[in-house]
Structures are given as C-alpha cells and as structure tokens.
C-alpha cells in the first residue's frame, strides 16, 4: 500500500448525497480478479453514455478535473455494498482523498486499506471546500495527514479527526496482516481457550 502523507491537488466537486458504491463502480466491472485497471470505469454510468461516449457535463470529464486527486462530495459517500472495487477504482483513477460530511462504514474502512484518506468535516467546511473545488484547476486543496488539516486555496484551514491506528498505518504504508501476525501467540491462546469455552464454534 502507498503511504499517504501530504497531498496538494485538484479537487472535483460532487455535491450529491448518498453516492453509492453502484454509482462509483457498477457491477459489470466487479468481474475482474485484479485490483487494478478500474479507473476508466470509475462512475461509469454517470460518466459515459450507453455506447461509451463521454458525457461532457460530468465533472471528471471536464478539462479542469480530468486529473483530480481529491473528491469533495455530499453526505453519506460510499453507501451500499462492501465492494473494495470502489476504492480500487478511485485509486486507479488517481483519487487519493475524499472529503465529505459522512461516509458509509465499510467504504470508509476500505479506503484506509488502499492508501486513500477519507476526511470527515462539518457541513460548513465541506461547503467551503466544495465552492473552492468549483473553481477548477486554479483551486488547489492541500491535505496534510500528519497535522490533520485541509487547506483551501484561499488559505482557510480545517482540522479533521482520524483514528490514531489508521493514521499510523496510512502514514507509513503498513500492511495490517503483517502487524496482526506479530500477535499470533495471542490468537493461539484465544483459540486454545475457546476450544474449552465454546467447543461447538
């Protein structure tokens, strides 16, 4: 997993609430057995017509946002299924940070496993950044994980909360499984205890 430390980039505005995982990556693209290559199909049904032509109005098709690295979105981003294809598609497109007032639980977790930082901010802050993002490529937003801040192009800075363990893993690009395997003896003793307490399990 790639580290996430600081990022300064173009933010694309998506002021829609409840952007679900079916919108982020429709199911016809879940048939892959790889993690990469999904970027071209990110937001597929909003981005392309039925015959594969780009829909010019869609934000990521506009020249200013084709290289966006940040999304600023409406409430409850990522609701719906557990498909990790959603963060894989975002990442493959080049998005490393999503900012919203709230995220669906599983999607939120999945982001951290893939080097994407989901940032939760109050409504007024998201609105400020949304307006900033609407200015296109002139407005570069800076996200700093170490100091837990987002800075708009006018210099306004917002602080956000992040779970310390998740922050640590993301800053260092750590692999969860490796960390857990260091606790193998605790798992062994749990299993031994369980064999007497709940032998049917």
């Amino acid at each position, binding site marked *: 997993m790639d580290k996430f430390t600081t990022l300064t980039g173009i933010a694309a505005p998506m*002021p*829609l*609430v*409840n952007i*679900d995982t*079916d*919108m982020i990556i*429709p*199911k*016809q693209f*879940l*048939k*892959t*057995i*790889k*993690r990469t290559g999904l970027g071209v199909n990110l937001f597929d*049904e909003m981005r392309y017509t*039925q015959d594969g032509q780009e829909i010019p109005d869609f934000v990521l098709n506009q020249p200013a946002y084709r290289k966006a690295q940040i999304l600023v979105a*409406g*409430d*409850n981003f990522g*609701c*719906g*299924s*557990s*498909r*990790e294809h959603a*963060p894989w598609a975002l990442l493959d497109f080049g998005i490393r940070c999503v900012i919203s007032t*709230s*995220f*669906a*639980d*599983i999607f939120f*977790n*999945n982001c951290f*496993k*893939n080097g994407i930082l989901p940032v939760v901010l109050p409504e007024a802050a998201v609105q400020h950044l949304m307006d900033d993002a609407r200015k296109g490529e002139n407005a570069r937003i800076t996200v700093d994980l170490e100091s837990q801040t987002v800075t708009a192009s006018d210099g306004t800075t917002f602080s956000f909360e992040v*779970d*310390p*363990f998740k922050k640590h893993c993301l800053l260092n690009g750590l692999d*969860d*499984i490796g960390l*857990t*395997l260091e*606790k*193998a003896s*605790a*798992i062994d003793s*749990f*299993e031994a205890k*369980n064999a007497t*307490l*709940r*032998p*049917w*399990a």
Partner: protein
Amino acid sequence: MSAPRTLYDKIWDDHVVHTSDDGTCLLYIDRHLVHEVTSPQAFEGLRMTGRKVRAPEKTIAVPDHNVPTTAGRDKKIDNEESRIQVEALDRNAKEFGINYYPVSDIRQGIVHIIGPEQGWTLPGMTIVCGDSHTATHGAFGALAHGIGTSEVEHVLATQTLIQKKSKNMKVEITGSLRPGVTAKDITLSVIGATGTAGGTGYVIEYCGQAIRELSMEGRMTVCNMAIEGGARAGLIAPDEKTFDYVKGRPHAPKGAKWEAALAYWKTLFTDEGAHFDKVVTIRGEDIAPVVTWGTSPEDVLPITAEVPDPASFTGGKVGAAQRSLDYMGLTPGMKLTDIKIDAVFIGSCTNGRIEDLRAAAAILKGKKLAPGVRGMVVPGSGLVRLQAEEEGLAQIFTDAGFEWRLAGCSMCLGMNPDQLAPGERCAATSNRNFEGRMGRGGRTHLMSPVMAAAAAITGHLTDVREIMDAAQHA
C-alpha cells in the same frame, strides 16, 4: 457485579483477542463466508505472500453473485469474465482446503441463505463475509457484518479482524403487525424513519413484541437490511424459535456439545438496564405495507401514499429526490398505486427463503401475471428450490406465468444475465433500488413478497390488503 451489558457487548467481549492502547481490538472470527466476486484478490494476496488460510474448517465458500440461473450452468457459463471468477473460486477453495458448495451442488445458493440453512450460522458467533448483507446472520444473535476484500484476506490469514467497537442502538417494534404487513415492511419502515445513514457507526439490536412474533426467516429479512440503514450489523437475541431452527442442521452441534451450546446461548440477551446510545421505537400497528419510490432505500412510503414533491425535503435531499424522480420517471403527486410495472422479481438474500415463496404463492394461486409483465422467481438456494417444488409452489408460479429459476443472486444485482432493460420498471423483493442496480437504466421498487405478488397480478403497484380482502369475500 459487573455492569449490565447489551447483547452486542457480550458477543464482542467473548471474541476480543487483543486490545491496543487506543482501543483498537483484534476480534476473533468464528465463521468466514466467501463468494466469488470479493475474494479472488484476497486469495491472490495470500499466494503472493506465501500465507495459508488459518482456519479452513471455519471458512465456507459458494459462488452466487454472477452464476446464471438457467439450466446447464454447471457445464458451462457463457460470460467469460463470470466463468473466470467462478473457476477462480473453484480453484481457490481446492487449493486452500476450505468448505465449498459448487454450482453443481444442490446445497449451493446465496451465501446468506445457505449459512443458516447448513447450520454454519449459530448464536453468539462472529461472522464475516465480503458482502454487506452479512448482517442477515444477526437474526440468530450472531455478530455478523460485511468486510472489504483486504479484510477478507486479513481474516483468511489470521482468523481475526481489526475492529473498533461500534455504538449500541436499540430499535424496538412494539405490539403486533397488522394483516398484510411483513418483516420487509418493518425493515423498510425503520430505514424510512432513520435514513440510510441513521445507523452509521452503530450495531442495531432489534427487539419488541413484533420482532419476537416473527419467524426466524422474518428475522433474517429484518437484519438483512440493517446495512441499508447504515448499521454495521443488526442483532436479534436468540430464543426458543432460534434454537428450534438451528437444531439438527448439518453443522449445528450435537449431543453434549449441543447442551453446552444451548446453556451458553441462553445467556445471550441484553441485561436489564444496559446502555443504548440511541433508541428508536416504532409501533407495530402503525406499520403499513410499504414500497420505495426513489433510488435510495430510505425513499419509503406506505402504498396508500403519493409520490412526494422534492421541494418537501431539505438540504442535499432536495436535489437527490429530484434526480431520483427523473431517473424513476415519476411525477410528484401521482398515487403510488398508479405506477405501472414491467417486471416482477421474487428472490434475493432478503426474501428468497421458503416462507417468502409460500407467501407470494398464496397470493398468486390461481392467478396470472398481468398482460405485458414478466416475472421471475429465483429461490435463495438449491434446497429452497427443491422444497418449493415439493410443496407445489413452483407449479403455482409457473402457472401464473413466472419463470422458475436456479438459485443465485440473479436480478438483485444483475451481474449475471438476469437484468432489467433501460427504463424497465420492476417490483422487487430485493434490498437495493440504486440507479442501475438491476441493470443500466432499470427502475426498482422495493417491497415484500406479497406486495410483489399483488403487483404481478394487477400490473401496477398494489395494496396487497385489497387482494386479501377480495379473496376473503369471494
């Protein structure tokens, strides 16, 4: 004496392997369910790092999401990508030595239906699956939730999950349901009341008389859609109904182990005075048969209502409602019962069990699909299908003009050939009405099996109570 605990607290406490200073826990996982869509990258990860599946005997795999539901699928799956995914699962199950139900096995079916059916799902367990509807298993008083593929790999390798504890939420449904009102109406009404983000950060415990009165299958329907309310998991405390359901299933404990298990399971309830961070109470009598009108499961209304005006909402929901109505091709103020349908889908992990099929068949008996409407029934498992055939339900469906399919997820997410055409409108017993969910441009109205059956007969959304009344007076 220790402080009173909720059911969630108890299950959690009994599965903590390790707690870090910041409160992050390593939670032991009793059952890991696996399907073909969210697992290939996880197995690939194991291979690349030379890791093994830690507890293959606790890992159960089945292909369900993109298998066709037509005959001959055990010989050949035409769609190449689907075939590759199913073959990858075949290979991974074999290579890593996990329990497996291939398409050729009569026990194959939707992962959340076969877990309980085979007795893998037991009270007090922790259960995960790379699928958000894992919440279904909470009906047994098991802590069950969906995980992403990275977490699937983590569980495969370590049989644990890194978790922070969620908050406790209680949803109480008091009193009894009225005739024509089902578990699906409960769960949709709860989402209507709390919103799709209302449960975010919580584990919900459903309780109250109306929940107690539900069968195990009805309880599964309720917990299944906890995720649509944003909750990580839904739980219902086990009782005699639960124990009766579990007893004798292939993987349920037997003999002395059964007795020991039963004694433990009887301790699985929320203690008097335990703390809930949020409480929602709904009167069972107030719940009507409901349908969704929009493209979010929170867009729920009683069937007697009208399509809402987007202006009646606030904030970002105004634009979302307008977008929904445009997508759904509806105008504010029209009666929900005036909405004409093109298709009916009965199935999914929400409503693809035998009682669902019985309920729909009871409405459809001796009736026909309305002209121009196509109907499909997809049993949740091969065993449900077999039982429905033995009980004569399959005959009722085919006589009515429905297609009678093999088990799988099917139209619920339209990854296999079963899809809606653009603009086609469907009365569906599944759980998501998202844009494009059942096929690009397809329009989904969620409802209970009896409501879907009623719509099938009339060709438009219909209050099933009218059909029930008519049958009574006939």
